[in-house]
C-alpha cells in the first residue's frame, strides 16, 4: 500500500501544475458544497431552536365572524367562544385531543404597585400556556394547577415589567393590584416582545362578572403525526364548534385557527427540501470538477502510453495498471477535496462567528435565522465517501482506456 501511495505521489509531483489546476476545480466544488451545507444546516438549526421553545403540537382557536347565512341566521355574526366549548371539543374529538385550555384576556385593567403601573390588562391562563408561548422563567414559577383549583390571586409578569413596578427589588412575593384586588407576584419571565401579565384562568373567570366567554382556546394534539391528520383535526374542530355556534363547516371566517403543528410540518418539509436542493446543487458543482479530473486522467493515460507499455513489458499486470490509474484519480480528488473541505469549514466557522457576534434577528439574538452554521462529523464522512466514489468514477474510464495499451508500445520509439 505504501508503495502504491509513493508511486502515485511521484506521478502527481511529476505534473505539479496540471495536478493543481485539476484539483482546483474539485476543491472549489467541495468548498461550495460545504458552505452551502453549513448554511442550510444553520437555517434548520435556527428554525428548530425557534420551534423548540414553543409547543408545536397545538392548535389555537379564536372566535371570528361567520360570513355566510346559515340555518336562518344572517351573515356577519360575531362568534364568541365560551367555557362549554372546551368540554365539547375534548369529548367530540377525543382521539386527537390531548388537553384543551383556554385564555381570558382583559385589555383595560391596570396592574399597579406602590411605585408605578402597567397598562395592557391581564391574561387568565392555564399552566400549559407557558410552553405554548415559549416563556422562559427568570425567577419563581409559572401558574400551576393548584393556583387554578384554588382560584389563587397570584400573578406572573415579564422581567422588564417587574423592573418598572419594583425597580431593583426582588419582585417575588411583592403585591400588585389588578382591578382593585391584591395579587402576589410568583414569577417573572424573560421579556422578548411579549409583556403580558398572567393570572390563573379560574381567577380571571371569577373577575369576569358572570361572563362565560373565552378569547382563545388552545388544543394540544395527540397521536397526530402527518400533515393530513393535522389538517383533518383542524377541520373537525371547526365542525364541532360549528354545531355549537350554528355556522357552516366551510365558513372560513367564523373562527381564526392557527394550526402550529401543520405550520411546523410544512416548514420541516421545506427545510428538508432545502437540504436536498443543497446536496443537488453541491454535487452538480462537484460534477464539473470530477469531469475535469476524468479529462486530465485521459490526457495522462495518453501521455504515458509509452511508460505504461514499458511497465507492461517488465511484468505489470493489467489490473495493477488499472488500480494505479483509479487510485491516482481518487488521490487527486480526495487530496484537493480535503483542501476544499478545510476551506469550506473555515468559511462556515467565519459565518458562524459573524452571526453569533451580530446577534441575529431579534433583540438579544433570541430568534436567529442562522444558528451554528457548521458542519458536523457525519457530513464530513458523507462528503469523504462522495469524494472517493467520485474520484474512482472519474478514473474508471481513463483506466479502462489504459488497458488497451499493449506492452509492444514499449518498443516503439518516442
Amino acid at each position, binding site marked *: 500500500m505504501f508503495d502504491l501511495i509513493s508511486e502515485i505521489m511521484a506521478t502527481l509531483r511529476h505534473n505539479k501544475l496540471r495536478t493543481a489546476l485539476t484539483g482546483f476545480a474539485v476543491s472549489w466544488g467541495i468548498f461550495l458544497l460545504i458552505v452551502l451545507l453549513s448554511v442550510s444546516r444553520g437555517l434548520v438549526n435556527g428554525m428548530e431552536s425557534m420551534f423548540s421553545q414553543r409547543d408545536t403540537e397545538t392548535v389555537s382557536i379564536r372566535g371570528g365572524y361567520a360570513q355566510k347565512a346559515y340555518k336562518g341566521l344572517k351573515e356577519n355574526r360575531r362568534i364568541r367562544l365560551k367555557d362549554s366549548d372546551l368540554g365539547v371539543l375534548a369529548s367530540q374529538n377525543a382521539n386527537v385531543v390531548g388537553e384543551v385550555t383556554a385564555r381570558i384576556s382583559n385589555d383595560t385593567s391596570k396592574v399597579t404597585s406602590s411605585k408605578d403601573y402597567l397598562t395592557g390588562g391581564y391574561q387568565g391562563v392555564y399552566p400549559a400556556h407557558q410552553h405554548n408561548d415559549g416563556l422562559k422563567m427568570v425567577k419563581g414559577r409559572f401558574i400551576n394547577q393548584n393556583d387554578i383549583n384554588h382560584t389563587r390571586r397570584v400573578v406572573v409578569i415579564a422581567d422588564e415589567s417587574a423592573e418598572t413596578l419594583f425597580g431593583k427589588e426582588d419582585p417575588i412575593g411583592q403585591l400588585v393590584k389588578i382591578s382593585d384586588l391584591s395579587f402576589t407576584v410568583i414569577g417573572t419571565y424573560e421579556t422578548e416582545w411579549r409583556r403580558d401579565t398572567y393570572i390563573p384562568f379560574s381567577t380571571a373567570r371569577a373577575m369576569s362578572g358572570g361572563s362565560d366567554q373565552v378569547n382563545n382556546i388552545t388544543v394540544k394534539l395527540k397521536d397526530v403525526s402527518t400533515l393530513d391528520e393535522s389538517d383533518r383535526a383542524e377541520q373537525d374542530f371547526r365542525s364541532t364548534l360549528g354545531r355549537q355556534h350554528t355556522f357552516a363547516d366551510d365558513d372560513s371566517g367564523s373562527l381564526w385557527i392557527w394550526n402550529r403543528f401543520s405550520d411546523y410540518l410544512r416548514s420541516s418539509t421545506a427545510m428538508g427540501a432545502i437540504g436536498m436542493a443543497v446536496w443537488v446543487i453541491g454535487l452538480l458543482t462537484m460534477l464539473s470538477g470530477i469531469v475535469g479530473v476524468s479529462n486530465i486522467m485521459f490526457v495522462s493515460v495518453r501521455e504515458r502510453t*509509452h511508460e505504461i507499455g514499458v*511497465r507492461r513489458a517488465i511484468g*505489470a499486470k493489467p489490473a495493477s495498471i488499472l488500480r494505479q490509474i483509479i487510485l491516482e484519480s481518487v488521490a487527486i480528488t480526495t487530496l484537493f477535496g480535503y483542501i476544499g473541505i478545510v476551506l469550506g469549514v473555515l468559511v462556515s466557522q467565519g459565518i458562524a462567528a459573524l452571526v453569533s457576534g451580530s446577534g441575529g434577528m431579534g433583540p438579544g439574538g433570541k430568534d436567529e435565522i442562522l444558528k451554528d452554521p457548521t458542519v458536523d462529523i457525519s457530513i464530513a464522512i458523507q462528503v469523504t465517501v462522495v469524494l472517493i466514489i467520485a474520484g474512482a468514477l472519474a478514473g474508471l474510464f481513463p483506466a479502462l482506456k489504459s488497458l488497451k495499451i499493449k506492452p*509492444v508500445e514499449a518498443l516503439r520509439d518516442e
Partner: protein
Amino acid sequence: MIISLKDINKSYPGVVPLHVLKDINLSIEKGELVSIMGASGSGKSTLLNILGILDNYDSGEYYLDGVLIKNLSENKAADLRNYMIGFVFQSFNLINYKNALENVALPLFYRGVSRRQRNKLAMEQLERMGMADRATHLPAELSGGQKQRVAIARALITKPSIILADEPTGALDSKTSKEVMQVFRDLNNDGMTIVIVTHDPGVGEQTNRIIRISDGRII
C-alpha cells in the same frame, strides 16, 4: 535449449494480409550470445515481439526455457515476462520521474517484493553495473551509457532466463556502444543467454552467432 521456435508464422490482418514471419525455425542454446540482424521491414521486430512474449503468433510452437508460450492470458504473459525475460531497449525506457534505484527495482514491485528487499537487490545490480554512486540520480541526470547500464541492471534484477536487447546501442555514440557491448559480453561470460536485435553489423560482429532474417525468413 533455452529458445526453440518451430514453424512460427505471423501475419497482420488487413485488406491485403501481411505475412511477416514465414515458417521460422530457430534454436538458441543456454549461454549463447546471439544477434538477430535484418533490414527494416524484414520481420526482425516482429520476431523480437514474439520472443519477448509481447505479441502472439498465428501458428507453430515457441518454447522458452521449456515453457510453451502460446495463447496466454495477459496476466500469465505479464508473469512470464517478469520472471523469464529481461528487456533492454534502444531508448532505455527508464521512467523519467523515478531515480536509478527505483527504476531498477520496478520489476520486483510488480512481483510483490517488499520495498526494503527490492532496494537491496536493486543496489546490488547497480553495483554490478558500476552505477552505485548514481543510485539517487534521475534518468535526465545520466549520460546515455549510464542510462543503458541502469536499464541493464533493471533487466538483470529479476534473474531472467534470457536478456532481449532491442538495438541497445542505437542511441549511443561509438565509444559508449563499445562499453555497453562489453557489458553484454561480460554478462555472457557469466553464463547469461543474450539475444540482441540490431541492424548494425558492428554489433553483430561482437556476438557469437548472427541470425540473419530477410523478408520473413531466416537465411
